[in-house]
């Protein structure tokens, strides 16, 4: 953390108490009503468009769900406890809508590194298979440009090293 990238001492006392929405009691306390509010919000046409756009840009469903719930908590709509109850349901709801709309998406619940490794291995196998097919189509008669056995090496002439005439005071004479 940089030296000045932190709150000043006493900064929390500069705003009036309970000024922020999340400091007051939440508007909705029942998970059922909070669920209805979220479903109503996400089912709007504009919201669905946003969800499609964001997921197509690489945002995973987990981050999207967390963002939706976090903003509801920050606006004082419901508490974090309700967020924890609603999170899997909202996640599944968004996933279901994206499945129906046939949108490619990342769920964000599996290990990304592992997924990348699996994809790499998959691509490697496919490429190798493709190369083998190409080699079979060309047949064995065509020489392999990378084969060392088929490479004809031209014999080079032996180089004759000529000694330079020795000069100077320290020159040894035979």
């Amino acid at each position, binding site marked *: 953390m940089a030296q000045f990238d932190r709150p000043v001492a006493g900064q929390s006392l500069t705003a009036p108490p309970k000024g922020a929405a999340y400091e007051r009691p939440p508007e909705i306390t029942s*998970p*059922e009503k909070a*669920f209805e509010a979220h479903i109503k919000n996400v089912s709007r046409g504009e919201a669905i468009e946003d969800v499609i756009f964001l997921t197509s840009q690489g945002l995973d469903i*987990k981050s999207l*769900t*967390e963002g939706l*719930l*976090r903003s509801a908590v920050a606006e004082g709509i419901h508490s*974090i406890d309700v*967020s*924890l*109850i609603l*999170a*899997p*349901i909202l*996640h*599944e*709801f968004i*996933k*279901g*809508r994206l*499945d*129906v709309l046939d949108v490619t998406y990342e769920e964000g*619940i599996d290990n990304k590194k592992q997924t990348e490794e699996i994809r790499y291995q998959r691509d490697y196998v496919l490429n190798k298979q493709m190369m083998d097919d190409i080699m079979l189509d060309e047949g064995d008669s065509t020489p392999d440009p990378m084969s060392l056995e088929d490479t004809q090496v031209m014999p080079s002439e032996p180089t004759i090293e000529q000694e330079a005439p020795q000069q100077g005071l320290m020159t040894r004479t035979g």
Partner: protein
Amino acid sequence: MSLEYVDRLLELRKKFNNLNTQEIKVEIKKSLVNKPDNSKNVEEEENSIEKFQEDAFLDVMLDAKRLKEQANGSV
């Protein structure tokens, strides 16, 4: 802040993916017909949040399935 809900999500998926659609329908009917006994009120209050979560998750899953079937049927 990180909501660690993935384990619960996978747990719920595992629970409901194994059930057939008919079994799910029967389960929903049963849950609507059954009335809570007074003796079990305390236990039900404790499990009410979990039960709500499961019911809502199942609703969402069935809704998505129904929409998908409709979309496939219309094509």
